[in-house]
């Protein structure tokens, strides 16, 4: 156990006896670091957070893993996209399972992020000094919804097409910049090849990247704001 390699990875020396040892375990661990060295018992009780934030984060990890795997069989082109999805379901081994995992995790993430927000609201955990983390949270919720929305176009079936038609037409109602913004999103006047590639890049690169950075910031702020309220 106490080889040089082990010690280089895990800084805390075993056995753990004193309070200092215990706090060093938290201090030296990236994942436990989300909590301050000393926490009130109430703040880490399951019934306080219902682990909803962590559940959201875990679902996001599942989405990244399954999403990257799906990318290996998916081409953002017409008509390839639709055919690829059918192949994933009926030709690729365990493809249907993978696709369903990705889809269900996405649905669940929207639900869990929303419940997390409600939890924070009812606990009054948005109050100073945590106001800014609430704002970061709102952006995370919007990103979660945008990821769902951009992912919805990718199978390129009838449902995708009309849902995105309706959604993009909503943008058109923005005064002054509406028409131009819609044109930029579509890369044309109606959904086409460019739209599919744009949504693909947003879904697979830009939005997840921003999401990862903001989640990191969200977690760092929890710690800096003095741990859970």
């Amino acid at each position, binding site marked *: 156990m106490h080889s040089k390699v082990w010690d280089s990875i895990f800084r805390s020396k075993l056995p753990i006896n004193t309070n200092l040892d215990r706090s060093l375990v938290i201090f030296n661990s990236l994942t436990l670091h989300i909590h301050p060295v000393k926490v009130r018992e109430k703040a880490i009780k399951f019934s306080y957070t219902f682990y909803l934030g962590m559940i959201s984060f875990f679902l996001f990890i599942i989405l990244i893993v399954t999403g990257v795997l799906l990318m290996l069989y998916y081409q953002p082109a017409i008509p390839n996209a639709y055919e690829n999805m059918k192949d994933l379901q009926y030709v690729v081994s365990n493809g249907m399972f993978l696709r369903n995992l990705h889809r269900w995790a996405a649905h669940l993430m929207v639900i869990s992020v929303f419940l997390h927000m409600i939890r924070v609201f009812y606990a009054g955990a948005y109050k100073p000094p945590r106001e800014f983390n609430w704002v970061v949270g709102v952006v995370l919720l919007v990103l979660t919804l945008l990821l769902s929305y951009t992912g919805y176009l990718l199978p390129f079936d009838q449902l995708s097409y*009309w849902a995105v*038609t*309706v959604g*993009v037409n909503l943008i058109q109602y923005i005064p002054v910049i509406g028409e131009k913004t819609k044109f*930029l999103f579509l*890369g*044309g*006047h*109606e959904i086409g090849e460019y739209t599919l590639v744009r949504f693909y890049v947003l879904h697979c690169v830009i939005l997840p990247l921003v999401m990862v950075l903001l989640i990191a910031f969200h977690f760092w702020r929890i710690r800096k704001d003095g741990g859970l309220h």
Partner: protein
Amino acid sequence: MCSYKTESNNENKIKRRKFLSIVGNSATGLVTFGALAVTIDFLSPNVIKERPPKFKVGPIQNIQPDTFIYEPEYRVFVVRDGNGAFYAISAICTHLGCNVKWIDSNIRNDSSVAIACPCHGSKFNRKGEVIEGPAPKGLQRFRIKLSDDDLIVDTSDIVSEEEMYLKV
């Protein structure tokens, strides 16, 4: 060193630090704005593979009064009314862009519902005028012309109700 003296003596003069920071911030602002403009420009495609705006229907002898033809690729209804006049209206709902559907082609008056949208229930009469929301305005009307025996519909030429009819 001499500048230090004049600065402290003359309050109205811009201090060197302030001057440099104005120059620096303006340069940064300019570059940011430029980068944004160039990026938006980049994101607007110059060549789009979309179909040409005009299409042909016909010959007109085959289209009976009080019937319509649906052109799915262009999402346009070409209608021949009871008087034999032609007009073309868009099948794109003015609410959020779903395809509207002709639900009753036997309508003879303008006050009843001829066309409906499956998405949020907008209703239109046979001329494309709104009978029930949420659609904010009537379906678009396109100019229609005769060329030999065929009708040419120009989806880039949107016309008023008076101009929409082609009498033959």
